[in-house]
């Protein structure tokens, strides 16, 4: 696993570059090519070929990368903020408020994420990327909250927090200035690993037709559209699938690498 860490960083860089630079360098993902070459294999002009509407696959892949990563980043940001906050409240203090918070986290954890996600999507209808990110973030905070809660509980009793208290720090100050920073490494690790989950969920939702809607490309709906042409052009499935797996693997490996760096004693 140790040998895989630099690999993770390398993969992540490739994916990010694709997402950032790709759309700037490739053709328009939405329009068919002028010469109407449909379902073409890789050529000099279209490095990954064209799809069933004659659109350049590489361009769609790159735009999809940008969209998927953007949604994932935003979703994780939302989950991180909410999750850290609630986790801190639940684990960092005593009292009724903390206990209620903790119970709320437990309840949220007991609900299968997919179910809540689908209920939200069903209720709000067709989602734009922003709304999708929001919904994904709103279902992702419990995992981060649980981790943060555990860390906060542990750090509450750490000697340096006690020292702050003897110097007259108020409970709030103890919490915000001392406990919170201590929980950040764990939260960060959870967030990085959470990116993998969100990528998969967004792809899954788009595959089910309830995420990002065609013609806007995302890896998930590219896979959906590829299903009908599996026999004739399996490449159309393979390419976005490979991209998805690479991005997910990169996120997971990065998360592992972070974990090894930030908390080596708790492998």
């Amino acid at each position, binding site marked *: 696993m140790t040998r895989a860490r630099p690999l993770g960083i390398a993969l992540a860089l490739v994916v990010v570059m694709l997402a950032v630079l790709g759309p700037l360098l490739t053709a328009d993902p939405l329009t068919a090519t002028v010469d109407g070459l449909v379902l073409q294999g890789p050529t000099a002009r279209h490095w990954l070929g064209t799809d069933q509407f004659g659109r350049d696959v590489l361009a769609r892949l790159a735009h999809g990368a940008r969209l998927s990563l953007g949604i994932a980043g935003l979703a994780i940001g939302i989950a991180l903020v909410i999750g850290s906050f609630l986790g801190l409240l639940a684990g960092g203090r005593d009292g009724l408020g903390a206990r209620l918070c903790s119970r709320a986290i437990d309840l949220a954890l*007991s609900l*299968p994420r*997919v*179910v809540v996600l689908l*209920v939200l999507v069903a*209720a709000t209808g067709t989602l734009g990327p922003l709304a999708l990110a929001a919904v994904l973030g709103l279902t992702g905070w419990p995992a981060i909250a649980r981790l943060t809660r555990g860390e906060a509980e542990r750090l509450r009793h750490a000697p340096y927090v006690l020292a702050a208290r003897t110097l007259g720090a108020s409970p709030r100050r103890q919490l915000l200035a001392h406990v919170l920073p201590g929980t950040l490494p764990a939260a960060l690790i959870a967030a990085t690993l959470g990116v993998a989950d969100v990528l998969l969920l967004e792809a899954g939702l788009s595959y*089910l037709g309830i995420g990002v809607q065609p013609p806007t490309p995302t890896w998930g709906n590219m896979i959906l559209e590829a299903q009908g042409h*599996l026999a004739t052009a399996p490449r159309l499935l393979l390419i976005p699938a490979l991209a998805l797996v690479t991005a997910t693997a990169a996120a997971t490996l990065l998360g592992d690498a972070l974990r090894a760096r930030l908390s080596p004693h708790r492998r």
Partner: protein
Amino acid sequence: MIGWVLRRTAAAVALVVLGTIVLVVLVHLLPGDPLTAIIGDRAIDPAARDALAARWGIGRPLPTVVADFLRNALHGDLGTSLAEQRPVATILRERLGPTILLGGTTLLVNFTVGLFLGTWSALHPESRRARAIGAISLATYTIPAFVIGLGLVWLGAIALPWFPAGGASDPLLDPEAGLVAVLLDRAHHLALPLLTMVLATIAVPIRQQRSAALETAHAAWVVAARARGVAPRRVAWQHVWRPALSPVITLLGLWLPMLVSGAVFVEAVFAWPGIGSLLATATAQRDIPLVIGTGVVVILLVQVGSLLADILQRLLDPVQRTA
């Protein structure tokens, strides 16, 4: 022990009730007129609209709506599907079987083959096969379930057309066909979806069992057992595997939600007529009563599974059993 079982069951019930409340509240909390959210852009006649309004308590306070829903649910009434205009409960009853079949067989395979592979990997930690098992299961775990499914469809139904590409049974099968033919047909259809689910989720039991068994493999009682001349095979099962079982059963409860998400996507890929694909299509159609009804049932199933797993784990561990 009994006291604990009762308390744990009460907790499970509470979670199901609270989860249901969360789902109902979520729908109502979303901005805009809840009724519009429920109806969407369907054409609907005024009488039905009024009935729906009454049913969903438009204008009534939220707690009343929740209470009504819970009360109805207890009587088996989970609402009426907008798309099919049939009771949700009826639809669910029809679709539950295939999911139990797929989920149940996945569970069986994961917790037999998975545990075996995990224990074997722990007993031969440096062998190439063990490393291969670890790498392959990790690889398939990383690949999303629906991608694995599509890959298997391509492999098993298109490239080598040995298996059907979807469905749970052959609609053209002769209704008079014997039991064996029916069972074979079902098995034939189950093969690819089952393989997909197993590949997507088996990494977890394998890794858990492997790490648990690695600990027990070096336990002092293993040396003591060898010191009395116990046969190696018996040492492996009775002294390495069996004590390592308890932490893995705990895993079962945590693994169930993974089964749920797997089921939703895999059933979609294979057009498997279970509640997973039902949830997906209901969501796409914004058939909110059906979505909520299905969601409630899924939550119930997960809690029941988790409860059974916890009870089993407690039974298997003598320390907890006699506490």
